[in-house]
């Protein structure tokens, strides 16, 4: 087990290192942060050169990379070109918003997908199944920005039940979570359905039924518990990408998350923030995946990660 964790950590380091390389060099292909800085305040060529030198952008790339890596080792991603704030501070400020949105999305997805998926599987081929499947597919058939705007129109503007944007209270979390969760729930419901179908065909389900216990007990206790494994894997993977992949939802709902931070940074070519943000997300993603793997041991006693080949 220990060896396994260490091994995963090594993988993680490798992935993070490669990402640092790619991110570092690729963003430098996309344009110059200094001319962006001046694109609204006007400046001469000399002024631009001077600022560039100040930011250390005149040094040869390998030197810049070495500086970046050195900082990385101490979790110091440098300071934002745009605001001068330490990147670590910027990221940490947003971590909570991002986390709560990702969790909110997952909770909504679970609330929708588990009942739909389970019912669909249990009543396979029936009307319930048909509508459950259509419903979950409709959920993933909207562009998410459109869905978000529509939700705002309906629930914030016309019905005035919920606030449209911001990050102050639980109520603010509802609409963005639904937007995010709808999309997730479509995929999740499908997954729950197919895992349930698979599990319900297993011999031990017959065993459980032959004990004379109630249908519901068979489905939940014996069926669902076993169908949980692929579901947890999926949610783990999703959680990782949700942390960074919610840009559009964040944008629509003015959610101060890491996705927005990175996108803004990209728009400003704020290299340190891009680098820091991307690497932070990469680390989170790998760590979450590791945690998911470890959580298998809780759900499924068969899996002894330590013995994995």
């Amino acid at each position, binding site marked *: 087990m220990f060896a396994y964790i260490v091994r995963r950590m090594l993988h993680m380091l490798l992935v993070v290192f490669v990402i640092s390389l790619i991110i570092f060099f690729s963003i430098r292909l996309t344009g110059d942060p200094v001319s962006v800085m001046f694109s609204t305040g006007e400046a001469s060529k000399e002024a631009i050169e001077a600022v560039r030198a100040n930011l250390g952008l005149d040094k040869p790339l390998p030197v810049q990379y070495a500086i970046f890596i050195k900082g990385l080792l101490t979790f110091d991603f440098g300071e934002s070109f745009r605001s001068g704030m330490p990147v670590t501070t910027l990221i940490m400020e947003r971590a909570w918003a991002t986390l709560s949105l990702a969790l909110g999305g997952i909770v909504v997805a679970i609330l929708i997908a588990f009942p739909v998926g389970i019912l669909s599987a249990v009543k396979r081929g029936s009307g319930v199944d048909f509508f459950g499947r259509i419903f979950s597919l409709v959920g993933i058939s909207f562009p998410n920005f459109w869905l978000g705007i529509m939700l705002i129109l309906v629930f914030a503007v016309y019905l005035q039940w919920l606030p449209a944007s911001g990050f102050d209270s639980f109520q603010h979390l509802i609409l963005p979570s639904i937007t995010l969760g709808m999309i997730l729930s479509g995929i999740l419901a499908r997954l729950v359905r197919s895992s349930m179908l698979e599990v319900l065909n297993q011999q031990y389900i017959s065993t459980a039924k032959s004990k004379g216990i109630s249908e519901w007990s068979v489905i939940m206790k014996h069926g669902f518990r076993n169908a949980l494994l692929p579901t947890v894997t999926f949610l783990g993977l999703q959680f990782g990408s949700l942390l960074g992949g919610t840009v559009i939802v964040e944008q629509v709902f003015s959610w101060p998350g890491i996705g927005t931070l*990175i996108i803004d940074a990209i728009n400003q070519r704020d290299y340190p923030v891009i680098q820091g943000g991307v690497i932070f997300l990469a680390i989170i993603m790998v760590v979450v995946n590791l945690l998911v793997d470890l959580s298998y041991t809780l759900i499924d006693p068969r899996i002894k990660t330590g013995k994995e080949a």
Partner: protein
Amino acid sequence: MANVQSTPVVEKQKKKSGAVKFFAFIRNNPIGVLGLLLVALSVGSALLAPWIVPFGPTDASLTARLDAPTWQDTTGESQYFLGGDQLGRDLLSRIIYGARISLMVGLFGVLISLVLGTILGLISGYFGKWMDDFIMRAADVQLAFPFILFAIVVMSVLGTGVWKIIIILGITYWVGFARLIRGQVISLKEQEFIHAAKAIGGTNFTIIRKHILPNVLSSIFVLGTMYIAEFILLEASLTFLGLGVDPTIPSWGGMLADSRNYITSAWWTAVFPGVAIMLTVLGFNLLGDWLRDRYDPNLKV
């Protein structure tokens, strides 16, 4: 001993009339039929666009700007069935033409990622060892790299346009195919008929080509259908972030993104392209779901 799978119930094939079979098919596969219909609708629009549109998709007429749909119009001036857009172009015609971009992005994007992912997945799964390690680590990196950032990097190196979007989607989503195929290959590899193929003197190449590929094809196909749906949405999202296709070319994503500020004043500009996307994406998803149930019930996501 005998641990034989039960033989499936096969109804003795009697000659049935075509119509009966057709209706039986519809009744037995409502999901698939609905999906097929929706997909056919958008594919039909894309192919037949020049012949079925009532107006030119780029014929702007600033005087007809934001005309209401004819059936909603009170002034009696509007001649557009689904209304006019911000430049007074016929929304219906643009939606019909828009199918072209969406489908193109979907189909070609999937084609690229499919070919790339399949090749890498086959290599990774079949040969294992360091090649597997290498490809899977590359996949990890690809997954951890934010898509939007990747899109911006590629676009600033290669420029923009439909084909750039297609390329970006293609080279981002290979991971999905590669992982799927790798998993399947790894379990296929242990199947007896693969051992058999080796035993009768097959080379690695023959085995992959003749025995492995045909057996992963159905899952590839299923995932492909689902990715088409996803790509259509991603094109819209990229457009929302300002990285879309040339705005004169009618695209659903573009129409949606550009019309979001008119939602309260001219709802049709935002609603109809949204419905078009939704129906098409739903169609592909239904189709994929149905195919999966039929050909590949074990495929996860």
